[in-house]
């Protein structure tokens, strides 16, 4: 059987695609960098891939808002492919800018392209925060955190806009939080800088109703390789690869 391939979507300004590929490879998976340009030109299709990651970076220079242009293009140009991908329940991960893109596109939290239910606002400190933080994994079920519930993971964060604001009207269906920023004891924290962006409820990452889509501000791919100070992030990619093998 052909090995499942994870698409790593690249748009101008994406800058974490190589290390994301390296982490997937170390986890035993296979990945391919796919240019958004090629998707929009029809040279590649999302349907050719079994999973997808929108990696970190400053797509389109973060102009008008982080993830805004990328999200706009996804919805305006690739809506059909995207809906199909979601309906097929394929794993989709947005890291940092990728999370911002998923929010701007309306894919997280509501799986509703074009309808935004979450904004990632400028950090409370009003500055870019490069920190090594701890994350506590919530009990919510997602393929990405399978068997990791309750664990505390160490990985870097590096972003200027990561403070979640959820749409008030959707409060009936509260967001499914996958990760929370944690203090030294592993408890969720709103204290700066352990919670580097001032996220209410310490929210660092969320999943959708199916548990297939995950968005998080911290960078698991930067805590994956043996050279890194922590390899906790690799666990997410191991879960992805296992899931792809199973299905």
């Amino acid at each position, binding site marked *: 059987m052909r090995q499942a391939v994870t698409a790593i979507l690249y748009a101008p300004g994406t800058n974490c695609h190589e290390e994301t590929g390296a982490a997937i490879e170390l986890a035993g998976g296979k990945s391919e960098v796919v240019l958004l340009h090629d998707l929009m030109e029809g040279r590649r299709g999302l349907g050719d891939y079994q999973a997808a990651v929108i990696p970190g970076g400053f797509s389109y220079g973060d102009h*008008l808002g982080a993830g805004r242009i990328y999200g706009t293009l996804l919805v305006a140009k690739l809506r059909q492919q995207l809906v199909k991908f979601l309906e097929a329940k394929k794993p989709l991960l947005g890291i940092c800018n990728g999370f911002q893109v998923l929010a701007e596109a309306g894919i997280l939290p509501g799986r509703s392209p074009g309808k935004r239910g979450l904004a990632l606002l400028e950090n409370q400190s009003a500055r870019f925060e490069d920190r090594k933080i701890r994350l506590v994994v919530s009990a919510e079920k997602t393929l990405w955190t399978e068997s990791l519930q309750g664990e505390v993971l160490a990985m870097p964060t590096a972003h200027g806009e990561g403070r979640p604001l959820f749409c008030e009207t959707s409060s009936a269906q509260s967001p499914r939080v996958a990760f929370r920023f944690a203090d030294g004891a592993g408890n969720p924290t709103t204290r700066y800088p352990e919670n580097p962006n001032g996220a209410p409820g310490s929210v660092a990452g969320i999943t959708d109703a199916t548990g297939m889509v995950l968005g998080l501000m911290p960078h698991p791919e930067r805590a994956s390789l043996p050279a*890194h100070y922590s390899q906790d992030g690799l666990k997410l990619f191991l879960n992805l690869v296992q899931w792809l093998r199973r299905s």
Partner: protein
Amino acid sequence: MPIHSVYTLSKDDAEARSWHSFFRRHGYSELSNLIIERVYWLEGNIEVEKLLPLLANPLYQQTSSRTQLKPEMGPVVEIAYRPAVTDPETPSILAGARALGEDGLEFARLSKRYQFVGLEEAGARKIAARFLYNKIVERVREPNETPTTLRPSGKPDPVTSIALALLNDEQLMALSRQHSWYAPLAQMRAIQGHERSRGRVLTDAEIEIVAQTWSDHCYHTTWKSLGLLRRLTKATERIHHPLVVSVFKDNAGGIEFYDDWVVTIKGETHNFPSSIAPFGGVATKHGGVIRDTLGFGKGAYPIGGTTIMGTMDPRMAEDAVPPGALHPQLVVTESIRATAYYTNPMGIPMMHPIYRQHPGYAKCLALGHSVGLIPKKHALKDAPQPGDVALLIGGETGRDGIHGATVSSTGMTGETLERESAAVQIGHPITERRFTSAIPVLREADCIRSITDLGAGGISCAAGEMGAETGVALNLDAVPLKDQGLTAWEILLSESQERMLLAVPPEKLDQAQEILDCYEVGHCVLGHFTDTKRLEAVWRGGKVVNLEMSFLWEACPIEPLEEVEPRRQPKLLDIPEPRSQEEWGGAFRRVLSHYHGCDQSSAGSRFDTTVQGRTAVGPYGGRNHQMPTNIAVSAPLHGKPYGVITTIAMNPFYGEIDPAQMARLMMVEAITKAVVAGADFREMALCDNFYTPKVRPGVAWDLSRMVETIADFSVAIGVPFISGKDSSSGTLDCGDRKIEVPLTLAVATLGRIPNVKKIVTKEFKRAGNKLLLVGGCDASYLAGTVYADSYGQRGARLYDPGPTKSIMRLWDALHQLHNAGKYVSGSAIAEGGVGLRLFEAAYGSGLGADIDLVRMEAGFGKILPRRELKGRGKIDDAHRAKLRSDGLVFGEFIGSVILEVPSDFKIESFPRGVSCTPLGEVITEPILKLRGAETILWQDSISALTQSWNKTFQEVVE
């Protein structure tokens, strides 16, 4: 075309809150609120409604076609870019609009409206001018402006010929100034001679090209005159280091890494633009040095960078700032904002963020390095062949940065700030990021014969250099312009950022263009390489440039410079030795809170240090990831253990006392920092960056001694300089006086190590372990130290780490010990001495240290033979006869290291011929303790000391 406006207001604006509290802290307590409204100006026949999803997120932004600010709430100041400058966001807005099916949008601009609740109009404008905009590139938009178009527009001046043949010297010089060529008389005469001998009057474009090519910035006339470039390259040739792949000639230097890869380094200063417009200057400092990496060989990939800023003391009083200089606090805060603005989107990890101060840095030091990675087979360029296409890639060409090369080669005066505004550039990192991704793809597809960056001198410099051996013919009409008003010479000289020039084999052109399209990188066929040995250019149907390459590259007159040994009048130090607990506490606080010793992570934590997934050791480490590591270790090949290590040494205080000795110390410091971490000094190369005042005889003398010293020392130790840059324009002319920068040399190391996991870091590892001081130590040398500076004193003679052989022996010994795993933590002594290092190691570990000064003093007698004490001539610093205990703690014994070894380590087992003295031990309790003969001289908790350590810089930047 109609111009629409969309006003957006955020319900939750962290930026506004942050400014509000900043202003209140800076004396505007009556400011009860600050509101920021963002405005989009959109030109074209469009339906604005259609664009709203792009312009605002309704979850937190409200939009309106009119301002949502209530005028009665307070004065509003609206800030926008000047009309000639394109907003960075403009291309993104246009792309987003097209995706939404709104093709009618022709141009877009942004502005920000700040409403100051509780202030009067005058106060609001004053704040805005001081903190919120830079008048060189931005402006206050007045309420009643009704522009007819948003586009930067204009008609170009025609090309003119400028006859020089009949002018006398005075007239030549007047012309040189009038055109901002800043060419000295000898050069003006050479150009005049050329006109006479060829019997043809040169065009303005031609003279501009010559002036730019011969500027000190591009041609290094000062260094060439003093024979310094040759001196350094000779030294490197003599070393003939087996790892060296490329030195000095290319845009960076490179050494062999592992598995057929090469790592590169380059350092660039961008002092002039950073002094007059710190945000733009520092942003483009990074952009420029990163392009040097991209322009190495056939295109290296940047894997790390640094930012090193030297300013006057940012805490200085407003009225003490010399005319023509900006307040150093503004320079520092703007530079931090700019580094974050540029390097984070570039996705290049910050390796060393360093901030230093010296009263001489009125014209600031703005240095940045870029470290790169490239397959060995692509590390050397091929020569462009006649017929190759000159392909210009990246951003459009605008009016920005014209005359940067010539202006930055001259001194700065109070007038420069206004007069040379065009010399400041705006950086757009997203444009550079696009081709950073595309270049390795082009390279691997063999589309690149040669590549170079466009920096100072723009197209003129890049094409002139690349075509120097063959000739090149350019079609200036092909160049995409931001500003239609550019004339031929401006197109040639524009220093618009984010452009590269490639020599592409003609059969590869289609493929190259396709790759560039996929990566959404702009490109144009600028011309082709020829066999005419001439630089030619056509514009609007006429030939505007036709210069012989031989004239351009060989005819620059190099005038001899006089060297005269300057007379220094050293002042002896007069510092009271601490006698009590309280005085010791005061001494520690002086050093920990000193600008050079303090916690600078409030700047550093704004820069991405882990992007690319290559970081093994970043600038901060230890238990809470906030301890400065003084090293950066990258594992550039994902999944492989191999590491690149870089370190930096730069000290403005030492240069004031003894420039040549400073130069040697900087080499020793930088190398020792890497060696103690685990690198072998035999697998290392160096990069030098000089910043010196405008050359006068005394400066020329010092500069020559500095270069001689580092050239000789590098040969003696066998560690080559592979790359470097000099700037000899560090003088601010304030009319009645001149402020000169201290003679500055920053040394960077680039080394390779087989396994990043073997790196030893600074923080203590285990209570009960012994602490050793390895290397020399002389308590009587406090000159140039941070401790002395905290008393406003400098002193007379710098510490000397001893003969070259003993330094090399120490490096070898350390490397042996490291390989044998004998020490568990280690750090090289530098600014702040043993005291600062002990604090940092304790802070980074949660442990403490118990230091026995008596044993240290006893060891001191042993390690410093009497003959050295006597043999050095006159006793200079105060208290020479007696060992000073504060000298032991705060003396900066460059070349010495602190090691932490297991408690059963036998000091006798230490390699022979290397001094080693016990310092004390690591303790569980997080305190620092100093023991005297019978008493505890002083002790304090790490948490209390941290209070002093982490305030200084925070107060400057927050």
